[in-house]
């Protein structure tokens, strides 16, 4: 819970803020930045309940693409703040060490009705000018967030469970060397599935919960669909959930979620069908890829 920035622009955005800090002598404000927000993603910049913060006023400035790029700026007559031009910083307002630039910040006041608020960044304006950029603040957590999580293509016709577990392992640890056939060998208690992956002993259906346990990333599971808000929460926390699809007429399939969008839309990554934006009603209503229904949910960590 806290203050979030949601980048709904096409390019990376960098945010600087001025936030109340009673630990700063003289002027009780801390300036910090530059928080990078990838396109389509969100970042929690202040982690505290906004209902209980001592001062709900704050100020912020954001720029896209590069230092001194197109910006979201405020009143140039009153809110120029000195900060480092192109380096990470976190220092009291009165401390100008390393500050080699000044920008007109947006002054804002947060409502105390919600523990979270999100600044949604739409289109930036002209660099170097005040009152630039299009943005709005909304109560609650971000409504759009994308993770850099991809389930790879399944290497055998029945290996969706191994593909999903491998994708999750590589998401959490880019140095992971686990492969689909290793996941299969583990679950089947075999040693030959990397040599003979297509054999009838190896190319078989499996359980993704066991596969996720093997790669060390199963947090919890439930034998039902989850709510959109539970999925949102997991995605925003950077922990992509996976689900099982049950086909009408028998059989199942595993896929992962890598993003959320407003109005109950979710991004799925599928080891057969690739990336799609689907409505949760499609998943729960039995029409995913024609006749698939969301039957199980697996949260990861």
């Amino acid at each position, binding site marked *: 819970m806290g203050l979030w920035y949601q*980048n*709904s*622009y*096409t390019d990376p955005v960098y945010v600087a803020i001025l936030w109340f800090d009673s630990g700063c002598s003289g002027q009780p404000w801390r300036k910090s930045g530059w928080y990078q927000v990838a*396109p*389509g*993603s969100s970042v929690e910049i202040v982690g505290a309940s906004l209902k209980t913060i001592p001062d709900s006023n704050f100020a912020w400035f954001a720029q896209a693409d590069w230092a001194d790029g197109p910006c979201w700026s405020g009143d140039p007559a009153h809110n120029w703040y000195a900060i480092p031009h192109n380096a990470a910083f976190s220092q009291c307002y009165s401390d100008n060490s390393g500050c080699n630039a000044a920008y007109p910040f947006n002054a804002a006041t947060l409502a105390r009705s919600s523990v979270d608020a999100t600044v949604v960044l739409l289109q930036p304006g002209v660099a170097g000018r005040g009152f630039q950029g299009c943005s709005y603040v909304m109560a609650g957590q971000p409504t*759009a967030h*994308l993770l850099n999580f991809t389930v790879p*293509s399944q290497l055998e*016709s*029945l*290996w*969706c*469970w191994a593909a999903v577990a491998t994708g999750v392992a590589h998401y959490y640890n880019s140095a992971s060397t686990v492969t689909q056939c290793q996941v299969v060998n583990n679950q089947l208690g075999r040693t030959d599935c990397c040599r003979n992956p*297509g054999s009838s002993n190896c190319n*078989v*259906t*499996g*359980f*993704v*919960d066991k596969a996720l346990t093997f790669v060390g990333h199963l947090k919890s599971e439930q*034998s039902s669909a989850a709510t959109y808000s539970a999925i949102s929460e997991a995605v925003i926390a950077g922990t992509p959930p996976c689900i*099982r*699809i049950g*086909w*009408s*007429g*028998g*059989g*199942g*399939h*595993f896929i992962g979620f890598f*993003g959320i*969008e*407003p*109005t109950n*839309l979710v*991004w*799925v990554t599928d080891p*057969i*069908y*690739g*990336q*799609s*934006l*689907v*409505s949760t*009603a*499609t998943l729960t*209503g039995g*029409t*995913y*890829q*024609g*006749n*698939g229904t969301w*039957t*199980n949910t697996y949260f990861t960590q």
Partner: protein
Amino acid sequence: MPIERPQPPQPSIDVLQAMLPALMGSAGIRHSAPKFAASLVNSPRSLSSPGLSYPVYTLGLDSVAAGARLSKAKLAAWRHEFSSGEEVVAAEVSAGRQPRFNGINVHSRFRSVSEELRSAAETSKGLADQSYQPRLLQISALGVRALWLKSQPPSRADVVIPLAPTPPGLTANRHYSPAEFIEALRPAAEALLRTDAPGKGA
């Protein structure tokens, strides 16, 4: 081989057009399908003019294992394809009396259905005297997709062309009769049903 261009139902197009604000506002679409996203901004009515629309039929594992006829396949959705160079986007709207937006695929691992149809038309000289209406047949439990060329008039034989990648037992791009196609998949369907269990997947 003359392949007719299917005419999508207007309610399906209307549902798609109603998704314009959500699709235009989607950062994920801008990121994954930038040309499609730009076309929405430059020409908002472009959603109503897909490059190709086709019906999607599905068949369950139980039907395949029972050796069912293709007439058992259910019309599940209409898919609307938008191509711009290498970038292919396929939006899907459910079939039925109350069509609903199912989703939009922006990064398929397959060739577009437009390309598959072009390829089928070019390589199917033996069927030149026949006219067909294209459908996409999905047996999702087996990960199978196939062009189902419905003969026009319906009294003549249909043709089923599995699309790559295919599971063992099927050959991509080969022409099957509907009965041959089901027979080729039957052993795999029976085997999957034998090992099917809650919580399992393929």
